[in-house]
């Protein structure tokens, strides 16, 4: 047989050859040192090219980060007004001052001097709870403004409230989470799965924090981050395509994203995956948000690498996914149960065996 040409080798490695042709190529590679060297080189080219292409992405591993839906209704009025505790305290002080002034004037108009004194003594007991209330108000909570207004109505003493609230305001000013976010992003920038899991807890807290980590993860390249942020909300603004599609697409993506990540098949198990040509480490990539997705190899450095030919995965039930390797030497399928650890069943030529699969940090 003639030596293999580069195109055939790449087609073979990409799993694009017919079964019979692939078998001929495999047999030749096993015998021919020159062609085996070409195959090794081609493997390197495929992996290197995939790496270079993935460097174009704002986040490694082919991720287009997804932001939590940030509809206007999710932000409180106070947040939209950028109300800080310090500003709230200042506003409270002004309100109290006005209220006190009005109260005193009314007293002067309608009642004689001792009535004013009586009003002062009546007002005094309310100051203490008002102070407590106002102090507790000066917490990082963005709802503080509401409680603060309650406190204001109870507290006609402007000075004391002012002292308390202003003293507390700086200490309680909400600290930006950017440091944490940046560190998280820096640590996990190459791991698509980790990026995704980093976003979900924040969104589950009802905070629109999914976007900031994603934006920061984008290497603090401000332009790309800005572009990505715009792009993240873009799918929600496409009524021309189909009403509600973008939103449902995001939901679907979020569900599938939970399952994304790197997995490792323990090679010491009975039904060896490696004998079937299945990589012992692979990444599940949710590329499209659809029902079935590609499986990618993981480089020794922990980067999510090229597509494993014939590798697909799909969600069978809410807690079960199936990973298939159609182009392996033996067709191979894993069923992974998610939650409380991972258990799996592998199917090799209709023989079912238990095969431990663990979720791993992609970089290890």
């Amino acid at each position, binding site marked *: 047989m003639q030596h293999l*040409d*580069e*195109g*055939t*080798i*790449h*087609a073979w490695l*990409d799993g*694009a050859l017919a079964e019979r042709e692939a078998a001929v190529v495999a047999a030749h590679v096993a015998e021919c040192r020159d062609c085996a060297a070409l195959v090794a080189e*081609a493997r390197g*080219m*495929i992996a*290197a*090219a*995939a790496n*270079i*292409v*993935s*460097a*174009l*992405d*704002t986040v490694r591993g*082919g991720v*287009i980060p997804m932001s939590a839906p940030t509809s206007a209704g999710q932000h409180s009025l106070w947040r939209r007004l950028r109300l800080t505790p310090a500003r709230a305290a200042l506003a409270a002080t002004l309100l109290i001052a006005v209220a006190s002034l009005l109260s005193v004037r009314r007293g002067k108009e309608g009642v004689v001097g001792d009535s004013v004194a009586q009003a002062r003594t009546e007002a005094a007991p309310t100051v203490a709870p008002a102070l407590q209330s106002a102090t507790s108000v000066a917490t990082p909570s963005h709802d503080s403004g509401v409680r603060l207004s309650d406190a204001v109505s109870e507290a006609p003493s402007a000075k004391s409230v002012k002292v308390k609230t202003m003293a507390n305001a700086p200490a309680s000013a909400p600290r930006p989470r950017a440091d944490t976010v*940046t560190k998280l992003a*820096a640590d996990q*920038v190459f791991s698509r799965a980790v990026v995704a899991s980093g976003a979900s807890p924040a969104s589950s807290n009802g905070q629109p924090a999914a976007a900031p980590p994603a934006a920061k993860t984008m*290497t*603090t*390249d*401000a*332009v*790309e981050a*800005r*572009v*990505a942020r*715009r*792009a993240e909300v*873009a*799918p929600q603004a*496409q009524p*021309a*395509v*189909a009403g509600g*599609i*973008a939103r*449902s*697409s995001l939901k*679907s*993506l979020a569900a599938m994203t939970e399952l994304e990540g790197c997995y490792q098949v323990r090679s010491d198990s009975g039904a060896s995956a490696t004998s079937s040509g299945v990589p012992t480490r692979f990444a599940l990539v949710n*590329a*499209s*948000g*659809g*029902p079935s997705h*590609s499986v990618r190899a993981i480089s020794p450095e922990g980067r999510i690498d*090229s*597509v494993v030919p014939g590798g697909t995965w799909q969600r069978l039930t809410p807690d079960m996914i199936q990973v298939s390797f159609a182009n392996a030497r033996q067709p191979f399928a894993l069923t992974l149960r998610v939650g409380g650890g991972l258990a799996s069943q592998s199917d090799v030529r209709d023989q079912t065996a238990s095969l431990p699969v663990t979720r791993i940090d992609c970089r290890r």
Partner: protein
Amino acid sequence: MNDVDRLFREYHVPLVRYLTRRLGDRDWADEVAQETFLRAMRQETIVSERAWLFAVATNLVRDEARKDARRRHRLELLREQARVDEVVEPEPLAIERAQEAALARKALDMLVERDREALLMREEGLDYTEIASALELSIGSVGTTLARARRRLVEAYESLQHGGSGVRGTHAAS
């Protein structure tokens, strides 16, 4: 058109990523993707959905690039300007990543258009039949196209890493 909803869910993200990699501009990629899906809605039947979508998107990019090359140049200038304006003491990791991305972009731009598109489509998981259909190639030539694209991309990237100005056998594409 059988199911636009499903089509959008399945292919919007990979299509936008493909276009973003191809164009280097996410907003532009979104615009082209949207136009692609609009055309899909008008299409009565689509045989090979993914190949059809990628082919239409690729053709839209080609048409637009031909019609308005200046726009792309302007966007790049704006990006550069914004970069200068907004980046304050970037972290080392960010610099490294930005350099990597810039090199990758340059290396990719050094490929001929067909090689570049075939490679990006393959990276999105399109099989040889789909690539052949989208780019109007014979299936037998897809392997050769991909092999050439990969080799040239890697060579160009390495050359740029070492400060080289060009790579044998490659040339700048639109």
